[in-house]
């Protein structure tokens, strides 16, 4: 029998879903790799989604609508975007079963443990199975951590590849074995490769970009992203076997001040020259830019992305000026 596909709206403890023999599907990745992601955004608008709502949410809605084999969705109701609430409701309207998952704002361990246990109840799995899944996934995560290390320490990896392998750790592309083979092949190809020559080292912080040509554009101009903040967090880069602690250390769903601790540490360690702070149009995280600007002592370019999938002329002009400024 084919395994049940379970949609997710951002990184959740996928160990639980895998332990239940189900296949997690990160709807973000399905949306953005669609041949016409812009069309998906338009479909949601035709269905009644407002124009001034983040394109990611609209893309997720249409993606869920398209993939009717996904009848269950784990949605992050706290710690991600509050628009997810309405996304859940509109999907419930069309018969999708929604399982809410909330990251506690204050990173409270007991509350987080309770959320994970409730998720385990819904999927009918115990800790032994979940920890078994974690061990399997950690084997792959460690290899992706190595890709990240090779990015900033050995200068062997492009910003896009760094983004891609890390971002795919949210669901392991629904097939950990196949994804691991991809990772292995990529690592094998890096052996013997010469170091990259971009002089300017950049950090990319914020949610993953809705446009996919950002990294190439930067590299054509002699700058390379050596730190993708959120994407790296999706790999849960913390050496602990305690699953609850793992998702408590995971910075993305918690407040900006906790996220900044990771950002400050990494930009220092990776000898970054400038920071690109990406915020999606209409996202509450745009407000946090003022905190980022006060706390980081590095040149910052704030980028706003709206529709998929290419950089617009204004954004390119701003990137040009920023790179020029760092030279």
């Amino acid at each position, binding site marked *: 029998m084919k395994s049940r596909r379970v949609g997710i709206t951002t990184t959740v403890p996928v160990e639980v879903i895998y332990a239940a023999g189900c296949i997690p599907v990160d709807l973000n990745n399905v949306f953005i790799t669609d041949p016409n992601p812009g069309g998906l955004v338009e479909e949601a608008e035709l269905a009644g989604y407002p124009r001034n709502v983040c394109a990611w949410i609209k893309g997720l809605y249409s993606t869920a609508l398209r993939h009717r084999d996904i009848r269950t969705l784990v949605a992050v109701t706290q710690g991600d975007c509050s628009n997810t609430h309405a996304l859940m409701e509109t999907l419930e309207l069309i018969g999708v079963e929604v399982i809410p998952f909330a990251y506690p704002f204050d990173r409270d361990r007991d509350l987080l443990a309770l959320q994970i246990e409730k998720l385990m109840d819904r999927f009918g799995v115990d800790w032994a199975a979940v920890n078994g899944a974690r061990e399997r996934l950690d084997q792959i995560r460690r290899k992706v951590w190595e890709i990240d290390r090779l990015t900033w320490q050995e200068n062997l990896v492009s910003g896009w590849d760094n983004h891609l392998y890390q971002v795919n750790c949210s669901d392991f592309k629904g097939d950990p074995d196949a994804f691991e083979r991809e990772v292995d092949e990529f690592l094998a190809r890096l052996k013997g490769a010469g170091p990259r020559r971009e002089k300017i080292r950049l950090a990319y912080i914020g949610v993953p970009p809705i446009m996919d040509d950002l990294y190439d554009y930067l590299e054509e101009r002699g700058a390379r992203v050596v730190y993708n903040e959120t994407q790296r967090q999706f790999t849960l880069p913390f050496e602990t076997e305690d699953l609850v602690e793992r998702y408590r250390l995971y910075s993305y769903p918690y407040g900006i001040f906790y996220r900044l601790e990771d950002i400050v540490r990494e930009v220092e360690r990776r000898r970054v020259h400038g920071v690109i702070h990406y915020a999606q149009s209409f996202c509450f995280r745009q407000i946090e830019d003022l905190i980022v600007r006060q706390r980081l002592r590095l*040149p910052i370019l704030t980028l*706003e992305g*709206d529709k998929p999938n290419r950089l617009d*002329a*204004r954004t*390119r*002009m*701003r990137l*040009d*000026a*920023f*790179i*020029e*400024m760092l030279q």
Partner: protein
Amino acid sequence: MYCGVDLGSRNVKVALMDEEGRLEFFKFDTVAFYREHGRLEEGQLAVDLSALLPAGTKPRVVVSTGYGRQTVALKGARVIPEIKAHVLGAVHLTGLSDFTLLDLGGQDSKVALVRGGRLIDFQTNDKCAASTGRYLENMAAVLNISLDELSRHHQNPVDLSSTCAIFGETELIGKVLEGHPIGSLAAGVNYTIFKRIRAMLLRLFSDTLVFTGGVAQNAALREILAKELGVRVVVPDHPQYTGAVGCCVEAKLGSEK
């Protein structure tokens, strides 16, 4: 002879600089420039500059910048980022090295912080052109006055929102209906520009504000900026050619290296 070309949204501005630094300026309507003088060659815009400029003009180096360069690269020209061009031009034209640069063009608003003659931070407008030349032209047309007349008024402004360049017209018509004098209406329009750029200017504040771009010709706005921010406002001669001059400076620097 060095040639700087600023491919703007409304006009293409060309500056020529001779070895002694003497400047000459030329302006062309952007659409006419592309349609009549340009042709695409291998994805680049080929323009016969010698046909457009005075006879015998033979620039050693051509440097270009501007919004247009995102769609077309000028053939045979070295391209530099717009904000860099404006900073180079502003430093050259004013002789200043520490200031905040405000450039308001046809569609764009840019604010840059310059220290020691170098760009250290910048902001640009979001996806709205409600603080630019095109907006002022539209509002002057609604009031049926010239841009010159519009730029004379900054006293007793009517209160207008500053969120949309197009809905602003309807709002202005409402104020006309209320019977406000033309001076207050015009002052209200000029104030909307200030309101939209105030936050950017405060974030990148300096005691001296160098104001460039076509909108810098608006005397009322210069008054408003000086009064509201308590800064010295410096407008170079021919402020709309600042980007083109910056390109000449870059061309000269490049060939001296």
